[in-house]
């Protein structure tokens, strides 16, 4: 997947590799972990307060990029719905079988239901396969941002960053 954030609007694999919020592949194989795809120095830090395990650090100045401590992170996913940029995901490559679980922030209505089959898309919006929705959770604290967990083919754990459903988001019914 090519890509360059300021040119194409999404992160290239190179950019991801050097991001301080992205854990190693090895860590993802050990269990669910946050993947923070935030590499620009913008003034923002709600992720830091969202983490009950103190696994995310922004510090001062507030324009620092978030740094993830992958050993402290439990993959609980509380940060996923708190990031105003919708840039945090949880990836779990520890599942048995050939699947991965990806938790992503989702702000389209209606929410998907557990068990629903959806197209899954990569960072560029290309459909890379089908996935099964495991959960779609909102609480008062998530303030209308849902955390949707989708089961995808294992090789797409680090590729899938969205779901596409007919008749829901504006571009869902048009291609």
């Amino acid at each position: 997947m090519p890509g360059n954030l300021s040119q194409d609007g999404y992160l290239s694999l190179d950019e991801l590799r050097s991001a301080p919020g992205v854990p190693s592949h090895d860590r993802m194989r050990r269990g669910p972990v946050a993947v923070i795809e935030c590499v620009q120095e913008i003034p923002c830090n709600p992720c830091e307060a969202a983490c009950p395990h103190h696994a995310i650090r922004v510090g001062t100045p507030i324009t620092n990029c978030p740094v993830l401590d992958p050993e402290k992170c439990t993959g609980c996913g509380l940060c996923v719905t708190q990031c105003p940029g919708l840039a945090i995901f949880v990836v779990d490559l520890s599942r048995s079988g050939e699947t991965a679980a990806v938790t992503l922030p989702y702000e389209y209505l209606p929410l998907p239901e557990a068990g629903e089959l959806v197209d899954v898309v990569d960072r560029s919006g290309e459909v890379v396969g089908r996935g099964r929705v495991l959960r779609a959770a909102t609480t008062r604290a998530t303030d209308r941002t849902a955390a949707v967990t989708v089961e995808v083919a294992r090789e797409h754990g680090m590729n899938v960053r969205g779901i596409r459903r007919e008749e829901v988001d504006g571009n869902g019914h048009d291609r």
Partner: protein
Amino acid sequence: MSVVDVLVVGAGPAGLAAGIEVAKRGGRVCVVDRNLEPGGQLVKQIHKFFGSREHHAGVRGVDIAAQLLEEARALGVTLRLGWEVFAIRPGHAVDIVQAVADDATGGAGDAPTERFDARSVVLAAGAEENALQFEGWTLAGVMGAGAAQTLINVWRVRPGKRVLMVGAGNVGLIVTYQLLQAGVTVAAIIEAAPRIGGYGVHAAKIRRAGVPILTSHTILRAEGVECVEGAVVAQVDGTWCPIEGTERRFDVDVICVAVGLHPNTRLASLAGCRLVFSPALGGWVPLHNAFLETTVPGIYVAGDAAGIEEASTALEEGRLAGIAAYERLRDVDAEGHAEIAAIQRRLDDLRGGPFCGGIRAAKSALQTTGETPCPAT
């Protein structure tokens, strides 16, 4: 005639914050806004804001407006909604006119006017969208991104079925996302610059939703008889000239223009404030000192009206202007004022990072233009 300590123009984040600070200190303050609904642009910002906790990070803009309004009302800030300032006379006599008829008057007869005797004035009238001229730009369906955002988020009306967004700054990216949320298709975003101007995370949201972003592209014309039926775009070269043979047509019924904002300087100009041109701040801007006082003593400026920035900086500037505008009346040494110093520090932090570098420099350049705006109180 009503007498107030501070008259604030604009009930957006800067104006409400200014009103709150004056009222907190026991001052009589009135906030005038031409709209019936207060909150400025916040009322249509349905996304979660960036920043830190003290800037309401993670809270949706529309909810920040509600919080500010509740605080202002609890503190006794007077709001004059649907009224517009039409004159600022020497000595801060401010004339207002009812711009939007309320149910009581029904709009019959001459619009009522009223005069305020204000000891200080804070101009927080926000920004206006830049226009873009191209063939067909007057067709129905060509609109500012702000108009499209008002339609979907305030009035719940879709502006059309398929949109071409012109401009990949934060406004273009955010409004694109919100159009998608409203069930509108966005065919593409075009951007004349070779790079996306807005935050990468905003771009990433709409890219994974399937919206292409074409950098180094401009709009050549809107096509249609009575309304927009299509848009023709082309790639541009390094000198911004369209490259022949690269034309592409998009089948769209709406063209949204998101090519930047400029400060609303009309009242500042009317009041005789000296304006300076600052590209980084969005164009002409009232010259102001570190306490946001303009070249006319007692007239302050805050928020986008003092240079295009974010809601978080507008809130901070509003607070600062409110404190400075009120405290000057009591001869408190603003320079020694701890609260003002703390706000100035927070503003400095917000203006850090590569995305805001130009703003910090431009703001401090205002203070070194060789002209003393108004001696610091």
